């Protein structure tokens, strides 16, 4: 697949990755500003979840923006899908799916060692963040049913090219986030006695850093492809 800087797809990818990295940078700045990280696990006091939410929303708007150009060449199925985006059925389905996902993440947190009878708020915040990093962008982009299909089908035929690009990048984000949050627990047994070793903090930060790494990887990949095309063009 050829990719050049001036191609629509490459532009989309680079903008997308920039938004992701900017979101995480804003989170980091915010954390630096607050100094004390103890509030990271609380729902009302921490701004991490809203920041990430707006970041993901921006990415979806970006995908819509780049998708406008394709509007003329859509298939019937794609058109139908698009028309059904704002129907109450789809909205409800999307919300339910995200809610179930949050529950699933909370279950996983507890299975992997979060306290069963305490720290509900922290577990909730962590699973909300994980949902935002993994499932929400897809749901925002395609609606509940679409997201399910993407997850469990080889390649559904209602996805436009532009959505495909975005989905590809969401995958890196999600994988990075999951692995980061999982690996964040590594500091739990250490006997350093720091206040940031308390339960949700390493996982929250791990999730953010992990998704940042995922995005950096995706970005490198895109740039590498562009560079290769550029070099081969120059040579010829």
């Amino acid at each position: 697949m050829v990719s050049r800087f001036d191609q629509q797809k490459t532009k989309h990818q680079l903008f997308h990755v920039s938004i992701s990295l900017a979101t995480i940078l804003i989170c980091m700045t915010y954390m630096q500003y607050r100094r004390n990280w103890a509030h990271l696990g609380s729902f009302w006091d921490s701004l991490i979840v809203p920041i990430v939410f707006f970041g993901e929303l921006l990415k979806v708007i970006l995908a819509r923006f780049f998708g406008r150009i394709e509007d003329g060449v859509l298939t019937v199925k794609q058109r139908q899908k698009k028309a059904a985006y704002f129907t109450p059925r789809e909205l409800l389905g999307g919300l339910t799916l995200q809610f179930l996902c949050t529950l699933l993440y909370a279950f996983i947190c507890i299975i992997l060692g979060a306290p069963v009878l305490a720290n509900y708020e922290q577990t909730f915040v962590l699973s909300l963040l994980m949902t935002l990093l993994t499932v929400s962008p897809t749901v925002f982009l395609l609606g509940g049913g679409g997201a399910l299909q993407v997850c469990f089908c080889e390649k559904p035929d209602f996805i436009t090219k532009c959505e495909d690009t975005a989905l590809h990048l969401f995958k890196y984000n999600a994988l990075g986030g999951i692995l980061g949050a999982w690996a964040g627990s590594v500091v739990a047994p250490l006997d350093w006695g720091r206040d940031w070793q308390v339960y949700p903090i390493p996982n929250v930060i791990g999730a953010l850093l992990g998704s940042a790494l995922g995005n950096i990887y995706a970005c490198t990949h895109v740039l590498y492809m562009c560079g290769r095309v550029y070099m081969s063009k120059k040579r010829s």
Partner: protein
Amino acid sequence: MAMEEHKSRLVYTFYMLTLFLCGAVLFLIGFFPASYSVAEQESSVPIDRPTTLHGEKLEPPPSSYNSFILLLIDALRNDFPSESTMPVSHERACLKLSLHVDIPTVTMPRLKSITTGTLSNFIDIALNVGHTEQVEDSLLHRLKQRDAVVSFAGDHTWVHLFPSEFTRKAENNDSFYVNDFYEGDKNVTRTLELELEKEDWKLLILHYLGLDHIGHVEGHASPKINHKLKEMDDAVKKILDHKNMENYLLLLTGDHGMADGGGHGGNTPAETSVPLYLYSKNCSKYAGSTKRYNQIDLTPTLALLLSVEIPTMSIGCLIPEMLQTLTLEQQMYAYFYNAHHLLNKARVKFGHESVRRSDYFGWYQNATLLHKNLLEPLRLGDGSSASKVHYENAKLNYLRVAREISEQLSESLVKFDYGLIAVGLALATATSLHIVLNILFLDVATEQLGLDILKLGQLLLSLVIGIMLNVVGHMLDQLMTSSMLQSLLLLFPIVASVYLSIDVAQALIKIALPPLYARRLKLSIPLPLPLLLCYAIRTFTLGSSSFIEFEYKTWYYLGNTLILLVALKTLRRRITKANVELDGRHLHKIASACLWQQRKIFVVLILLTLMRYLHRLSSIKSTLMLFSLLLFWARLRKFTDTPQAIFNGIAFMLVYSFRGLNGQVQFFVLPDQLASRYVLALLVLFWCCLALVFVLGYRTALPQQQSGQSLLDGPPKSNLLKLLQTNLTCSLILTALLYKVQNIVLLPTLLITLDETYKLCEAYGTTVRKFSVRLVHVYKIIMTIFVARMFYFYQGNSNSLSTIDLTPGYIGQTSYNPVIVGFFVTLNTYSAEIHSFLYLIVHTLRADLRSVGIIQSLPSYAKAADSIVAPLYAALVMLPAAFYLCLMVGFRYHLFIYSVFSPKVLYDCYTVLVFYLVFLSTSLYFKLFKRDA
């Protein structure tokens, strides 16, 4: 996979395990030399007390008390004696100090430290039970030289250590029988009363064991503890108020502390800190000193008070608070003597030259000069302020010389036998690499890598190299052996490790540079990335002391991650598969149907999470026990036929009544005497039931003279499977008796977890694009290892030696029998690992893949039990252990080497040993009964 091999590799694995254990034992001997003090030339330290100082004559002080009593209460930790628990002892103590105890915190090494003043070797912890060598020189030896009368009563470890040093001794018959709370202590108190009348002794040693036994059986919070402390308080009162006691010194202390669970042997503050209370007639009470001294400081101080020589091995300092009754001149002498003694030891250890160049030598010179100048005024009784200042100055200098040398000497006591370490490490590493390579390249191992066969030429070559290495090692003093026989014996591991290393090196070269470049050697065993990653994390986290201390967290996290990951992957693949057929419609219905299909594994995950909170369930333990026994019986019903199941049920009822009679669960209340009589009968009945289950199982497995009939019934089922099932069942029933009440629920949960995990692995295997039986095997094996380890920690085990539960060893025992106690304790501690392995083998033999839709692979599936499953399991057990041995060498000067890393290495080696024994018995059955496979 037409080339899949199904040769039994049990014999090969057996050899590898044996060699690995040999290597591990050699390593341990080298790492913890059993007696390092012997190697030093102790004879060059002068024994006699110094009598001159710069030409001035000195006189050793006479004994300051007529009689000394050392009252040792086993496991008396620092917070036990208090105003409420021991009022008399607390009220009337002249001096209260706190002593720091060195690891290992078990009795025998501690007694050595108190009497000889030297630190003990870590491995003494293993020698604590059973073998004890005699002590060469100690306070008691010195007293005996002076014909002083020394009397003793209590723990018989003392008598093993000092067989002929006591004038009179009244030792307990059985110090390791932990169910004896009161009888032994009563005898000690009786001896105390007799001795108090006699008045001829110089030193009386009383060692009470009851407190330690209560701790082991009932924990540190048992109400019996306070009762016991009261009894001890009465003994102290008896001494203090006795009319014959005129000029005496009573020392009340513990040999080691008690951890919060009630055990000891570890390194927590509760275990390493004990009180020291001193009592004498008309003492002036000093303000409670908060300074902490070491337990070894007691030895030189006591030697001076007893007016005997300081034992040669002593490296302790003095406790100034205990010397207050001496005159100033005598105190000066005491400080001088101990500093002098330590300086002599330092000269022997570090050489004259380096001592002369050291700081402390200057301090010592300074102090002796001041001391000499002080002699005259002190003898004249001059109390001028100038001499006071000089006195304080000299004292301070002496004390800091002693402290400095003491610290340096205790650090330099660590000694490794690098020759043995190298040989052991080489053997262990080579063995584990060999078996891992052999299993990974299973199909080509024999013909292309040549790992299986014994090659004579290579053996001869390694023999030659081995002899050369042995000779060169001896010549360079790297290998030190005391006799010709030992050096010849050492040849065997050297040759074995050379031979295996050549094999491994050759194989590695062939794998890296295959003979035919077109055909790279292919791995015969699939290695899925997540499994590999979890296994690698589990291995590499051994390098951190906090990960070892909290090892259970690693296991819970990784084990649950693995199960969850496999479950979610399977779920997703199932949904995708169903979805393809239905073309994207009704997706949520499919998803919920698939989720419902997998509900059991999620229940198991919830159960695994709940097991973490097992220790909080003690309030409902009666209900829990009944419920879990019922569940367990239902689970075992799968392996048993009806008569067996009946006896099994009776056995479980007996287990419940046994716990009920012991008062651990709700049961009819019976008078004590009656209860203790019933307990014995119950246990006899239990053993009968167990034997019946066993015999019934074997009878059906080994039919005699019924061959005609069984031919009609169809093909005879595998005898091997039935025998192994019977063994597993019996061993599980026995474990139900040994387990703590609230732990019994772990047994059925373990079986359920393993069952569901295996089903999950099969389901996962069928959803993979390219199905391979071996992939299923690999998943099952690694899952078994993780689940076994998780249950091992659920049970309350840890990497500290203090959590070993000794109580099950004494069920139905009336005395200490090392073999039975060892067997029971091992079965209790390692039950999860033993039974998981057995269950895996049984499962592999009886597994029926038809249920998941694979028909053709059935015969080769069961065959894999001895060709893949057992060897791979062994390899996966050995590899981390070998890695850990390597780490130990790297960490030998680590701060936590003896407190964290060393107990873990003992645990690791013991785990391999237990696995070895289980493996050995299983493979014997394979050898004897595997005909129809």
